[in-house]
């Protein structure tokens, strides 16, 4: 094995205080980027949670609808036009919208109503931990997320409240269906949803289209688009992408997360560059000796690059451990941080690039070394 790695590691570990300062910089930077990107991914998942759990082949939406929560409405008469397309198995209206939940105490809290025709099973509550979804077919019944008990002023299944002046009873509970807006989702039957959101009977928020099993998906998509050219016809992937793009970039939330991540990268690069430069400066006489002995510039660069890589690997391992701890802690929060294998791989690559880029200053300094300095007394 080459002595380059030995020399690099000894240079690095020789000054423990500086090494710790370097690691703190890298760990701070990587954890910051990891959390920002994890929030970005978590946010991206949360904003599409309803789309992800809907059994849809196509979404028919009002023109210009930006996301699942968009309050625009369409005319349900179009339902028949879409249903007449060859290859379409069902077209199910969905009614969503904000409403008021009045507690027994008289307090009011905003809620987000999600109402679909339960018989079609296009968008039903999932992760039901108590009660029965079928009970929603009865008038005045709702399903709520149990982590919102405090917000809704209830403590168990069977509790009652009022939505838009209508008495409702909780018939089932879900676990983990949290809203990124922090407004609790309330699952209801389509008919009740119209009452709770004040939507006229001929109106709906969207139409969920399902294809027949043997349908040619591309041609059905084109046919549906042709039938309702004054509406938006999106595949689930397109709808997801549009929702994410609206919430993450249209609102500036994503830009803020990215800005935080970029700040982390800059801070990390500057800290590593400074400590690496200062370490190189301290070892200049050794690098000059190497040069005097006849070593190539590439050999000397490799010592500095190895130092940068060692910083990167050790710093990343510590940062990853902290990052996974944060993931555990936020798993049940309103906005969980999501760390995927790709994010981990990307962050490792970013850490390596950051540390190696930080070595440039040190390398530029070493390039200017005059080997003759070893003869200065």
């Amino acid at each position, binding site marked *: 094995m080459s002595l*380059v790695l030995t020399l690099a590691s000894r240079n690095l570990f020789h000054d423990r205080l500086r090494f710790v300062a370097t690691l703190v910089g890298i760990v701070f930077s990587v954890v910051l980027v990891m959390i920002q990107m994890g929030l970005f991914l978590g946010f991206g998942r949360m904003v599409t949670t309803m789309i992800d759990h809907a059994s849809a082949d196509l979404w028919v939406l009002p023109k210009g609808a930006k996301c699942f929560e968009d309050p625009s409405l369409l005319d349900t008469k179009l339902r028949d036009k879409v249903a007449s397309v060859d290859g379409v198995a069902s077209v199910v209206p969905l009614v969503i919208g904000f409403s008021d939940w009045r507690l027994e105490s008289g307090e009011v809290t905003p809620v987000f109503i999600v109402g679909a025709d339960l018989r079609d099973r296009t968008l039903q509550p999932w992760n039901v931990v108590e009660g029965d979804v079928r009970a929603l077919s009865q008038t005045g019944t709702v399903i709520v997320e149990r982590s919102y008990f405090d917000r809704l002023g209830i403590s168990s299944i069977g509790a009652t409240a009022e939505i838009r002046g209508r008495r409702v009873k909780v018939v089932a509970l879900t676990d983990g269906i949290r809203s990124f807006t922090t407004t609790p989702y309330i699952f209801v039957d389509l008919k009740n949803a119209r009452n709770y959101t004040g939507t006229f009977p001929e109106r709906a928020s969207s139409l969920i289209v399902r294809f027949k099993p043997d349908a040619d998906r591309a041609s059905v998509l084109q046919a549906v688009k042709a039938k309702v050219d004054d509406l938006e016809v999106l595949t689930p992937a397109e709808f997801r992408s549009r929702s994410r793009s609206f919430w993450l970039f249209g609102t500036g939330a994503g830009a803020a997360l990215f800005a935080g991540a970029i700040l982390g990268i800059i801070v990390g690069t500057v800290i590593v560059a400074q400590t690496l430069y200062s370490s190189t400066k301290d070892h200049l006489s050794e690098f000059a000796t190497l040069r*005097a002995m006849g070593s*190539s510039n590439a050999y000397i660069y490799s010592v500095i690059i190895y130092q940068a890589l060692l910083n990167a690997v050790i710093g990343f391992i510590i940062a990853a451990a902290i990052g996974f701890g944060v993931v555990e802690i936020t798993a049940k929060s309103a906005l969980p941080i999501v760390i995927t294998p790709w994010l981990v791989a990307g962050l490792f690559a970013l850490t390596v690039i950051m540390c190696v880029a930080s070595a440039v200053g040190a390398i530029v300094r070493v390039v200017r070394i005059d080997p003759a300095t070893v003869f200065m007394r």
Partner: protein
Amino acid sequence: MNDSIVEAKGIKKTLGRGAGQVQALRGVDLSLKRGELTLLMGPSGSGKTTLLLILGCMLAPSAGTATIAGTSTSAADKEGLAKIRRDHIGFVFQTYHLFPTLTAAQNVQLALDIRGERGRRAAKKAREALTMVGLEQKANTLPGELSGGEQQRVAIARAFVANPSVILADEPTAALDSDNGRTIMGILADAAHERDRAVLVVTHDPRILPFADRIIEIEDGRLVGERRGGAEHARMPKAAAFP
């Protein structure tokens, strides 16, 4: 047959600019032969170190040519000069310049590592070089735990290990006491006589004159005298040279 390994002809070197300009070397002709230990002596500011830097391919002459093992240094760029040093020259510095975080053996092995010689063979060569300077027991010791004389012996082992044809030593005994100085000069003289290297030692130290085969004197940038050494190393008791 010309057995000169280093040839310098008409070397001139001007240092500084404007009013501060100094003619450090004013036309030096010098050759170093294999199997010979040459002392370069002169007062401070005489141009000893400047000449050593030019022969060591670390400084370009203002005029004249230097040839190391048949390779002219005139056309070489920085990397080319580094390659000449790597291939042909071993250095011994006054202040040793060992790597404090590496063991004695690793310090010696580093000279092989920069030449691409790695692995067990390189480690064995490094140990053999340390044995040659009598430090086989200190192979795993860090420089900070060695005496000045021991550190200089490690530095000499490092200079020899890659088998260069030329050894350039800058005041190798200046920081050492008599016993250690004698030991160091004995090793350098052995390198010249028994291993057929050309050894040039720049020094102020009159105690090492008896180790020299040839003594060259330099003054005001010119070689002003050359004589054979006072006693052949092989024929004199080493201890007698130092008081």
